[in-house]
């Protein structure tokens, strides 16, 4: 680990002397892109962070939202891309562990996990398959052991992730507002390190995350220990209930260096600590190694001498180690000693605040021509094509994944994975709905509109459960920011998200930036990921059986927006065209109308239309409810389009609604008053999914056959190749 020459000069001039070797390591960890956000921080400020429900506290790693009646939810998102690309099992598992500790830091109990997974083409690429399989097992083994349900996520395959992996994890916490840890510290308080022992694993991890992936520096392997993490959670919550915690921070990237400097900086205090007091796994670790080790499952706590005894009793009960490693001072210095010897003594604001950069940006050259379409080979048999499409890894059901995750533990999961967003019941009678979404294929073609599309898609998913979006998490994943073209795509995505967040008044409650996502064959496609939290005041849309005779309606226009569609890319192997664009006004009225219809209990089911377009979304409804449907494509609202475009365009702001025929009039009254573009497309019943145009059948599939293919193909591919 090392600093850039100008950073070294900067550090030297700020402290007025040559830094010691320990100081160099500490600063290198903290000033890495991963910990300091030096490329992005200036720009992230544009996102709206405040809102009616947002509670901000100093030193929190997670966002906090007030959900009423004295309760709060917390949320955070993280990625563990580099580690997962070399050790998918451990990398993905420790990713879960890390984000859970962020939730815990605020003093809330983690109640849900989400995972977003991206790999290369698993149909052709054995390495991608191996990464995928092991990352899923890693997440399952960790989350399941903790007893925190993994209730949703997404999985996507794209050649741009070959030999690489994006593993994103988000977590949600829940608790009483009065139990939130109000981080504070004063002179004489003591600093305690609690949890697993500090070892050599993960040394240099944050630096590693900020380099592009090359085999020489594949050194940061972390071994997950979910059992210890579970004990830490219970111990911390017990300590919280006994008011033993003055301030708390989890140890993540940059290890003790970051946790100590950031805690001191956030609370305007100094911390003096002794590396000899840290419980280590190996006896011969140097002060540098102890300070930057990224061993998992550790928490830093500021408490008082009087409270320490009780804290130690709790730790003993849960058989976890806890060491007093230092105390709070008032001189705003981070003073690291080894016994009597000083190894580092630095102003905390210098350590915690790297010099922010203003990186140059430039519109990528490829974008000049990307929207041009080429002539595609016509599809001769749409039924056959559709079956193949339903079996394709990006479209196929993800049950092989979420079926390995305990998504019921905690008995809050009212709407379970497999539909749009999942829904949890809260202790105050309300419900929380959440989903994460990304779409690198759209973002590659148009980083701004693509990012907005992810935002809207995540909103649509929670809206389909009857929830109003109340907060957003963003995770911005790009290649090397030193490349102006890549940095431009980062800025465009960020601006798009900001515009949408402001228009919809959805505050950003947390986020993460992950840069340098590159392999020897190049950067990944821009991959912003959006998590949406939605609140349901009364009842979520209940799981109802769709019966023969029920009607299917679509809301929103289907437009000629095929760029980045699964149809272009999977069926025609073509990357290009215009990607879908969200019309903010239309988007808002459609969202509001669906919420109103759910609230008036006029719907049996609502489903959003996204990847794979109308054809896939309607099939999903049929397959999950095991019922056929007759759909007339002539009635699809929007401009006149060729049949394949109507079927597979991925235009946003569209919802499929299922309702009892007798409610049509009531529905129309509401829809008309808001000038919503809608149409009744068809009727459920029978054993076939049937799409027709001008009375001519276009797609005709048996539901059971389609369902079997869609349900099993991912597992077949992963397990049996």
């Amino acid at each position: 680990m090392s600093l850039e020459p100008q950073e070294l000069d900067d550090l030297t001039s700020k402290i007025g002397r040559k830094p010691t070797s320990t100081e160099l390591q500490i600063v290198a960890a903290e000033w890495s892109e991963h910990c300091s956000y030096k490329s992005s921080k200036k720009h992230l400020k544009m996102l709206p962070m405040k809102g009616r429900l947002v509670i901000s506290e100093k030193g929190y790693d997670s966002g906090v939202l007030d959900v009423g009646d004295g309760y709060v939810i917390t949320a955070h998102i993280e990625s563990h891309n580099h580690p997962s690309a070399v050790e998918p099992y451990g990398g993905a598992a420790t990713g879960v562990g890390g984000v859970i500790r962020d939730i815990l830091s605020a003093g809330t109990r983690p109640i849900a996990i989400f995972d977003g997974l991206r790999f290369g083409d698993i149909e052709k690429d054995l390495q991608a398959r191996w990464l995928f399989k092991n990352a899923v097992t890693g997440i399952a083994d960790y989350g399941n052991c903790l007893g925190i349900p993994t209730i949703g996520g997404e999985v996507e395959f794209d050649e741009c992730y070959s030999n690489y992996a994006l593993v994103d994890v988000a977590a949600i916490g829940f608790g009483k507002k009065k139990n939130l840890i109000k981080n504070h510290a004063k002179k004489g308080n003591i600093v305690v390190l609690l949890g697993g022992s500090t070892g050599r694993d993960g040394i240099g991890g944050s630096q590693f995350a900020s380099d592009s992936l090359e085999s020489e520096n594949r050194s940061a392997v972390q071994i997950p220990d979910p059992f210890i993490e579970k004990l830490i959670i219970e111990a911390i919550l017990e300590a919280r209930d006994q008011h033993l915690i003055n301030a708390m921070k989890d140890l993540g990237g940059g290890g003790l260096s970051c946790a100590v400097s950031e805690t001191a900086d956030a609370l305007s205090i100094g911390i003096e600590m002794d590396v000899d007091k840290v419980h280590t796994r190996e006896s011969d670790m140097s002060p540098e190694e102890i300070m930057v080790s990224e061993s998992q499952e550790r928490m830093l706590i500021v408490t008082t001498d009087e409270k320490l005894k009780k804290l130690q009793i709790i730790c003993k009960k849960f058989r976890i180690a806890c060491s007093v490693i230092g105390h709070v001072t008032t001189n705003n210095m981070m003073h690291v000693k080894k016994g009597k010897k000083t190894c580092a003594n630095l102003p905390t604001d210098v350590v915690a605040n790297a010099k922010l950069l203003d990186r140059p940006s430039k519109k990528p050259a490829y974008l000049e021509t990307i929207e041009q379409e080429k002539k595609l080979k016509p599809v001769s048999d749409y039924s056959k094509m559709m079956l193949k499409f339903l079996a394709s890894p990006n479209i196929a059901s993800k049950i092989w994944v979420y079926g390995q995750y305990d998504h019921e533990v905690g008995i809050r999961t009212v709407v379970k994975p497999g539909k749009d967003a999942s829904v949890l019941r809260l202790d105050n009678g309300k419900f929380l709905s959440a989903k994460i979404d990304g779409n690198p294929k759209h973002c590659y073609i148009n980083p701004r509109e693509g990012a907005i599309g992810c935002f809207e898609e995540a909103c649509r998913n929670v809206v389909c459960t009857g929830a109003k979006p109340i907060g957003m998490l963003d995770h911005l994943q790009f290649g090397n920011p030193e490349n102006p073209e890549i940095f431009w795509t980062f800025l465009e995505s960020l601006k798009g998200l900001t515009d949408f967040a402001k228009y919809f008044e959805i505050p950003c409650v947390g986020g993460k930036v992950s840069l340098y996502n590159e392999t020897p064959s190049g950067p990944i496609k821009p991959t912003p990921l959006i998590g949406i939290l939605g609140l349901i005041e009364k009842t979520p849309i209940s799981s109802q059986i769709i019966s023969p005779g029920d009607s299917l309606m679509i809301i929103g226009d289907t437009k000629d927006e095929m760029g980045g569609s699964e149809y272009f890319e999977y069926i025609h192997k073509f990357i290009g065209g215009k990607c879908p664009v969200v019309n903010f006004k239309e988007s808002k009225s459609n969202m509001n109308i669906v919420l109103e219809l759910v609230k008036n209990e006029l719907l049996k089911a609502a489903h959003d239309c996204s990847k794979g377009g109308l054809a896939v979304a309607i099939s999903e409804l049929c397959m999950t409810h095991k019922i056929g449907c007759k759909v007339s494509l002539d009635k699809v609202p929007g401009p006149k389009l060729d049949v394949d475009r109507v079927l597979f365009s991925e235009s946003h702001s569209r919802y499929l609604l299922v309702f009892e025929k007798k409610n049509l009039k009531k529905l129309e009254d509401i829809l008309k008053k808001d000038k919503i573009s809608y149409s009744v497309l068809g009727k459920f019943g029978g054993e076939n999914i049937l799409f027709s145009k001008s009375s001519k059948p276009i797609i005709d599939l048996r539901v059971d056959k389609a369902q079997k293919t869609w349900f099993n193909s991912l597992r077949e591919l992963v397990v049996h190749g």
Partner: protein
Amino acid sequence: MTTFDVHVIIENKPGISDPEGETILHDLVLKGNHSAVSKIKTAKMLKFTIKEKDKKSAKITVQKICDELRIYNPMVSKVTIDVFDA
């Protein structure tokens, strides 16, 4: 061609922690008062039955299979391969 039993032992590399071994040691064996034991390390074993011309080629083939099919991840684990007459 002769049949051989090939034992493949997969374990975490030295220096990489083994939480399972530690739990078995501390929460089971030491609590059971068996203080003569100072360490427990867990490993996974695969026993292959294979037809090859000699011991040496049996070992080479199995090593190749393990590497090629990613039966273990060389980043975290090491393998030891022993060949026995069946």
